[in-house]
């Protein structure tokens, strides 16, 4: 290949690269548009929101004030947020406390049939939630757990535990075996090994796992609406209370949606790279 040819090839590649980069930007902006529009609508008045699409308007925080004020007898923003935060944090904490030792037993000192055990955990995700909702509802009613935070804390364990074990196993596998063996020779217990070697080395992976659990628990709607429609209701239920059958509600709904999604969207933006690495490697590496 002559030098001129090479220069043409490089120039061509740069040109192609620029076009593809532009294409990526256009695609991303189009794809993001519904989210952008939701945020824009949340700063409009109902009049501006319920009209032919408007890009220019006088922004207002009225709808944010409207959705966060509390009326007695109606699920309030602060009540739903408190319920969600307590349920999500407590259940995620318990998930980690159970999943870390389990992942240790699957990755670092694997039990004899670790593959079967891992399959059992994954296979529970194939059981459709509807298949269990009736017995769960009946059990919850019999134990007086309907409309309590406790019932969702317990159920979100079942939702997130398999996923957490799956992801943590892949992160734990990256912990060098020599370090563990050295600690064992030094007579470190399971807890000692976890605390001094596994947890510090796998900390970023554990954080990513916890975030994914938080996302799924925060966004969960089915169990919440079936079991806690009256008390202990979470943020997704609160969002649906902002739809009215009479009058316009798009601006109000948009403001509520933004408030409901912000914590998880921010967390996801921060953890995007690591989260997916854990998920993908859980299966492939």
């Amino acid at each position, binding site marked *: 290949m002559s030098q001129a040819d090479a220069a043409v090839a490089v120039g061509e590649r740069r040109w192609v690269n620029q076009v593809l980069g532009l294409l*990526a*930007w256009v*695609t*991303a*902006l189009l*794809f*993001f548009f*519904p*989210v952008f529009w939701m945020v824009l609508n949340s700063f409009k008045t109902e009049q501006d929101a319920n009209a*032919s699409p408007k890009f220019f308007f006088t922004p207002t925080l009225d709808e944010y004030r409207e959705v966060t004020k509390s009326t007695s007898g109606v699920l309030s923003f602060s009540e739903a947020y408190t319920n969600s935060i307590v349920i999500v944090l407590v259940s995620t904490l318990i998930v980690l406390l*159970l*999943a870390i*030792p*389990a992942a*240790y*037993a699957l990755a670092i000192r694997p*039990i*004899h049939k670790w*593959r079967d*055990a891992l*399959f*059992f*955990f*994954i296979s*529970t995700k*194939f*059981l*459709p*939630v*509807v*298949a269990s*909702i*009736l017995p769960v509802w*009946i*059990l919850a009613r019999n134990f007086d757990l309907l409309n309590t935070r406790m019932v969702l804390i317990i159920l979100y364990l*079942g939702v997130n*535990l398999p996923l957490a*074990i799956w992801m943590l196993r892949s992160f734990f596998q990256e912990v060098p075996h020599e370090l563990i063996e050295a600690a064992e020779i030094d007579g470190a217990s*399971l807890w000692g090994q976890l605390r001094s070697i596994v947890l510090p080395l796998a900390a970023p992976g554990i954080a990513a796992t916890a975030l994914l659990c938080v*996302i799924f628990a925060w*966004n969960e*709607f089915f169990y919440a609406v*079936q079991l806690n429609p009256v008390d202990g209701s979470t943020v997704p239920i609160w969002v*649906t209370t902002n*739809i009215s059958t009479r009058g316009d509600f798009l601006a109000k*709904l*948009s403001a509520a*949606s933004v408030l*409901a*999604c912000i914590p998880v*969207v921010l967390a*996801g933006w921060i953890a*995007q790279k690591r989260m*997916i*690495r854990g*998920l*993908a490697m859980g*299966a*492939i*590496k």
Partner: protein
Amino acid sequence: MSTTVRPRLRSQIGPKVSGRTLDEKWRRRLPLLPALLIMIALTQVPFVMSVYYSLTDWHVVPPGPREFVGFDNYQQLVHDHFFGDAIVVSIQLTVFGVLGAIVLGTAFALLLDRKFFGQGVVRTLLITPFLLMPVVVGLIWKNQMFHGLYGVLNWVIEKLGGTPVEFVSSHPTLSLIIVLIWQWTPFMMLIMLAGLQSQPGDVLEAAKVDGATPFSIFRQLTLSHLRPYMELGILLGTIYLIQLYDQIAVMTGGGPGSTNVPYYVFQKSIGGGWEFGQASSYSIVVVLASIVIATIALRVLSGLLKGEEIA
């Protein structure tokens, strides 16, 4: 000789060794047990209860006695054409949702897998739909994108000279599929991106040196490397979409073309039907169908886990 020596050796050393290994076995299992027991309690117990309910005639509102009726519920199920419709909707939503998301997700991942200005921002914009609450996704698409009067899509359609479409009420299945593809494309994109970035660079370089065209590199190297990632994406997407409930609940509240099997089971039981026995038989059918899909999927997955030993 060995036959005479072995028993004696075993009797001398055996008990001690096996005692230690048994102890060692349980020491290894112990950390796994709490998680295992909790998952059994949370998933297997309700399942067994469901199986039992499905063999009974049990009407809860108004309260009636629970009578054992054997397979009656399953026989009725064959004649319930609503159930058949729900199966069709479930299949449509899952197949088109997952396929659409994997195709778009792969395309987006290929676009992102190069250096360009603002790459990180583009990736952040693209993953956002996956992070939104499914309830919110359903509601904002219904009320701001699909809306008959003020919807953005109809505004675009009118600008282009078309006639407005009542998306949700006239085309519920299509509307749901669009929403599902939008929400799941980012997830597929991230998995495919993980796959693209783990591609061994030296192999690609060697192919380039050998004069392979970009297209043949893509077809022969990249695609085969991406296959397990694609399978993983399809598997995870299928698990979630087959159980779809949230978007249906907030967008249409069920109805022809949008009631899938989970939603139908819900309607038949705690969603107003209160036919617990009948509804349980439907949910058992869902489980059986899921087991068939899961068996296929787990075989794929076990292939992935085995690959790990070679790698």
